């Protein structure tokens, strides 16, 4: 039996996402680095009480007739972000670095639910977020960092002076699933990205119990330059391809 991590449909790839799962979602700003097809599959699946970990919680879809949400207007084709799951009431907590600012009259789903007291947020400096994810991937249970010392970030955390610098103890971020977006994969799950769309995707691949990659297309094994593979196959459990997998069930 040869190894083949490609799933025939996006829905099948997320079929075992359970209520209460902690999910890492890659992406940054308007870059084409958001696993939108996997997010839509999770929306159809309807798993609830999810904790989303991402740079920003996402804007979701504008309500019909409502003014457009704040943030960049231009989006990549076929785009959806984690805001869709928030809008759908599937999320109880967001762990993020940059939620943006809610604007009266044009609140994002995140800011609306937060204002309504229906969701919790843990705000994390972006580098600490990346490092907590990397630590989880690398088997480091916790680490000290100067970032956040002497600010409200250190509240409730251990602090310690190391080499004359006050540092904060931060813990690895444990997650059940990582949804990442890449450009190409082979049947082993090696990944290559495009430009700044790698962002959190490259950091998150391998940092959860199950990593599911959404790629534009599959190539034959050997079709990726070994020197150019950004995420080694060992970190990827499942692959869905926009070209080769079905969007529905």
């Amino acid at each position, binding site marked *: 039996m040869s190894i083949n991590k490609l799933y025939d449909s996006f829905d099948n790839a997320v079929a075992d996402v359970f209520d209460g799962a902690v999910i890492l979602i890659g992406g*940054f*700003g*308007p*870059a*084409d*680095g958001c696993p939108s097809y996997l997010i839509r599959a999770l929306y159809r699946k309807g798993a609830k009480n999810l904790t989303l970990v991402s*740079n920003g919680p996402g804007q979701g879809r504008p309500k019909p007739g409502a003014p457009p949400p704040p*943030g*960049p207007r*231009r989006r*990549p084709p076929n785009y959806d972000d984690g805001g869709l799951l928030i809008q759908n009431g599937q999320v109880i907590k967001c762990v993020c*670095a*940059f*939620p*943006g*600012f*809610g604007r009266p009259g044009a609140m994002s789903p995140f800011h609306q639910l*937060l204002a309504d007291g229906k969701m919790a*947020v843990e*705000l*994390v*400096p*972006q*580098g*600490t977020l*990346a*490092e907590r*994810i*990397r630590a989880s991937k690398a088997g480091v249970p916790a680490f000290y*960092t*100067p*970032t*956040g*010392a*002497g*600010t*409200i*970030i250190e509240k409730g955390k251990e602090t310690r002076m190391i080499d004359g610098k006050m540092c904060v103890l931060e813990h690895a971020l444990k997650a059940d699933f990582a949804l990442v977006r890449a450009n190409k994969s082979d049947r082993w799950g090696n990944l290559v*990205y*495009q*430009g*700044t*769309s*790698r*962002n*959190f*995707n*490259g*950091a998150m691949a391998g940092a959860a119990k199950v990593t599911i990659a959404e790629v534009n297309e599959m190539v034959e094994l050997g079709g990726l330059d070994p020197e150019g593979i*950004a995420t080694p196959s060992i970190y990827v459990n499942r692959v869905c391809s926009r070209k080769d997998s079905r969007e529905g069930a």
Partner: protein
Amino acid sequence: MAERLDEQTMALRVAREFENGMVVNLGVGIPTLTSNYVPEGREVIFQSENGCLGYGRVAQTEAEQDFNLINAGGQFVIGNLGMCFFDHAESFSMIRGGHIDLCVLGGLQVSEKGDLANWLIPGREPGSIGGGMDLAFGAAKLIVVMTHSTKENEPKILKNCSYALTAPRCVDLVVTDIAVIEVTDKGLVLKETAPGWTAKEVQALTEPTLIIPPDLKVMSL
């Protein structure tokens, strides 16, 4: 009273601080404008925390917009020779590991000790930290560029910041629309005033007492 500098002119003044060979990270807002004013004959490499080192100018036309090439402010930028990409963990190893020579950030408040507050306006919780905290702790040198006072003309350079801190004692230089101020162990030193502004007028809009050196200059623009 003389006119205040506009955002482009403030960006131009900040860019005079770029030295040849520096790796520079730019925050959202006025800081991103500084990339247009790299002084003639100097080469700097811009780092963006979303995983790019060595990107080019901001995209001007729709045809130049590439969804796989944006800066940390979400602006489309164009490619450049020598450019490379990496993931967020690598990017913040650069930032937290002290590899960034200079960072330029916007500010809400700066204290006389060099504390910076720039991510949370009271009443607009939870705020947005982004990569600013890591940059404030990790960059070798930090310049803050901001208007000197609020819209209500209240000082933004204070004895102590009242807003939540980004990092304590992190600011080296403040460039505003009326002055350039250096943070030193002895206090805030007024290095330059904008054309038409006197030291006394700048002091009136600044809470802590400024040190006025004998070589105080007018900004050359």
